[in-house]
């Protein structure tokens, strides 16, 4: 048992992945000597060498595109995109190249890659450092999209993602990098694409992922003081969605509020609302309601706390759901 921050847990998980398979390589800006701007890859180049932990030129399309080429030769690249807002220069390589090669080749080619993206706001950053672009990738056939909300999941999920034969976009909630948890390295991890009920409850289901799981747990605790028993689900996998856990909960509580930082329009909450409506129509006591960032570009950091869903915004939506 070890107590680690999420950043350290990711580092430990990557180290295990590098040890487990000599074909695993890490590539990205500043991932070597510096250890990444969030220190997630700290010490890995020193221990595994420059051939396996590759400091890349500052070109995201180049990082992903060359990694595709390496994967075609049997390597398992783990690319780091330094910040969420810098993933867009690599968009063509991810969406038009990486995601399709297995399909185009009728299954002959495999491109086992992980693209790590620190995402979300709340750290007082300048523009393009606080985005939540997950919906773009969930919308793309051929990609899988996962995110961890805590250090334990971070440790296991990164290893499972590296071992996957499908390309995976791995979102890391950067404002939770320094939250600690106790990790049992001998434990059996949950399956990568499984959602998890992180707090059971009976009155309403909050569905969140990444940075908003902590927010929802805090909201559920606050609601308890008011006599309301909220369930919290951590999706963990955004594509595919684990609808078995979601639907079971929605049918039981009859009320669902989805919570994410991303803008509301055509976001994860929209898909969840549609799927829950399809599967749980006769169990619902209220429409599925959504809390999210507003449909504005991410704002200047001095007002980001107003933009980001917080405990009050979540509880306000809980009240509206319970009022039906």
């Amino acid at each position, binding site marked *: 048992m070890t107590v680690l921050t999420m950043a350290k847990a990711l580092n430990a998980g990557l180290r295990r992945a590098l040890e487990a398979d000599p074909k695993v390589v890490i590539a990205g800006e500043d991932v070597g000597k510096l250890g990444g701007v969030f220190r997630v890859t700290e010490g890995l180049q020193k221990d595994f060498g420059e051939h396996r932990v590759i400091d890349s030129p500052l070109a995201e399309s180049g990082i992903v595109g060359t990694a595709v080429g390496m994967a*075609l030769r049997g390597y398992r690249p783990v690319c780091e995109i330094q910040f969420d807002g810098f993933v867009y220069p690599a968009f063509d390589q991810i969406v038009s190249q990486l995601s399709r090669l297995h*399909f185009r080749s009728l299954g002959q080619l495999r491109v086992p890659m992980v693209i790590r993206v620190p995402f979300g706001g709340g750290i007082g950053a300048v523009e393009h450092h606080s985005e939540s672009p997950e919906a773009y990738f969930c919308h793309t056939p051929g990609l899988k999209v996962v995110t961890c909300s805590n250090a334990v999941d971070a440790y296991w999920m990164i290893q499972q993602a590296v071992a996957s034969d499908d390309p995976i976009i791995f979102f890391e909630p950067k404002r939770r990098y320094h939250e600690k948890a106790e990790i049992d390295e001998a434990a059996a991890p949950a399956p990568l694409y499984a959602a998890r009920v992180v707090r059971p409850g009976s009155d309403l289901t909050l569905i969140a992922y990444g940075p908003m799981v902590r927010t929802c747990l805090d909201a559920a605790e606050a609601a308890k003081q008011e006599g309301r028993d909220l369930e919290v689900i951590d999706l963990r996998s955004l594509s595919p969605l684990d609808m078995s856990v979601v639907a079971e909960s929605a049918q039981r509580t009859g009320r669902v509020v989805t919570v994410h930082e991303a803008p509301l329009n055509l976001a994860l909450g929209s898909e969840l609302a549609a799927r829950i409506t399809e599967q749980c129509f006769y169990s619902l006591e209220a429409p599925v309601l959504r809390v999210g960032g507003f449909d504005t570009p991410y704002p200047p950091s001095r007002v980001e706390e107003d933009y980001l869903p917080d405990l009050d915004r979540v509880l306000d939506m809980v009240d509206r759901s319970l009022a039906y």
Partner: protein
Amino acid sequence: MFSDRRHPRGTLKDKRGDRRTPTTRGSTAVSDASGASTEVELVQLLTPEGVRVEHPEYSFDGDDDQIRDWYRDMVLTRRIDAEATALQRQGELGLWASCLGQEAAQIGSGRALLKQDFVFPTYREHGVAWCRGVDPIDLLALYRGVNLGAWDSEATRFHLYTIVIGAQTLHATGYAMAVERDGLVGTGDPDRDMAVVGYFGDGATSQGDVNEAFIFASSYNAPVVFFCQNNQWAISEPIERQSRIPLYRRASGFGFPGVRVDGNDVLAVHAVTTAALERARSGNGPSLIEAYTYRMGAHTTSDDPTKYRLADELEHWRLKDPIERVRAYLSRTAGGQHDFFATVEAEAADYAADLRRRCLALPEPRLLDLFDWVYVEQTPYLAEQQSRYAEYLTSFDDVEETGGSRLGLAEEGPAESAYRGIA
């Protein structure tokens, strides 16, 4: 051009000893202060009139049998290309991107490859595909819409066609970085050392991906050859819109050598590519070849070049035809060629007729099957969509037995409403 003085192990030519020359011949190919070109050098070993000429750095070491083989390659490539264009005109292909006029660039470079080398093509490298043993029917299947170009890229060492301009140059570079990590460069074993070639066109040189590929290849000294077919036109945009300097000179800004070769001269293209590949295989890093050629046909069958270029230009380039000059050479130098030319023509005609038959016999794909290839490990949601779609299709079985569509639309072809409700 590829004798890089910083690397004493040098190229094949360096090993031969006495060929080390400056990267430019004399002071001819220099830029003035504004970066504008003065005189541009072009490697040529066979003139448009079919006369062999010497070059101080590159030479053709083969015999006339070798040239006859390449002649046959080029004639067959052109004939296959013409057949595909005809098939498109008859509605049997959705589109075709002709390589007419670029046969020497493709056969010359394709025949320079060793078995272990790996190619990342655009969507127009039909001649290179031919050299790699890709069955032309696989190219037609892509353009017919039967599949997305699903040949065995591992067996042929020829990656799938890439349609987004320039994206494949990054794949080539990354693949080459992996080759280097696998210890397959600079061992000195000719059966083991390998190189990677990324093909692209003049239009692609404006793309960020190509420039990023140059940077990555240079930074990591990747064993990759960037083979640019400058066919003068990016659809309707002339080369002047892509570059103010000859493209091969871009390489020096990225830190590796570049050379312009007469792209319609199969001997010169072969010689230049052989040297570049050897440079890569021996661990001396990337290089850029600009094969100066001409797109004699349209960009694709959807294009109409008469709207943007003059017929005179095509006539000018017809005089430099890559196949005619070889024919002129062979006719002049070796007697009794008539039978050879006739035999190749007959073989090409037979091949094209057979290709046409095979094209029309290509089995139609089933959408239902394609769900299997989205993921290695299919997601539950996709599996559910697939099985619901299968059920939906099955729901028409009874209807078909009674001779009509459930919606009464069968005779009029598929209507959009017939697909409503598919998961």
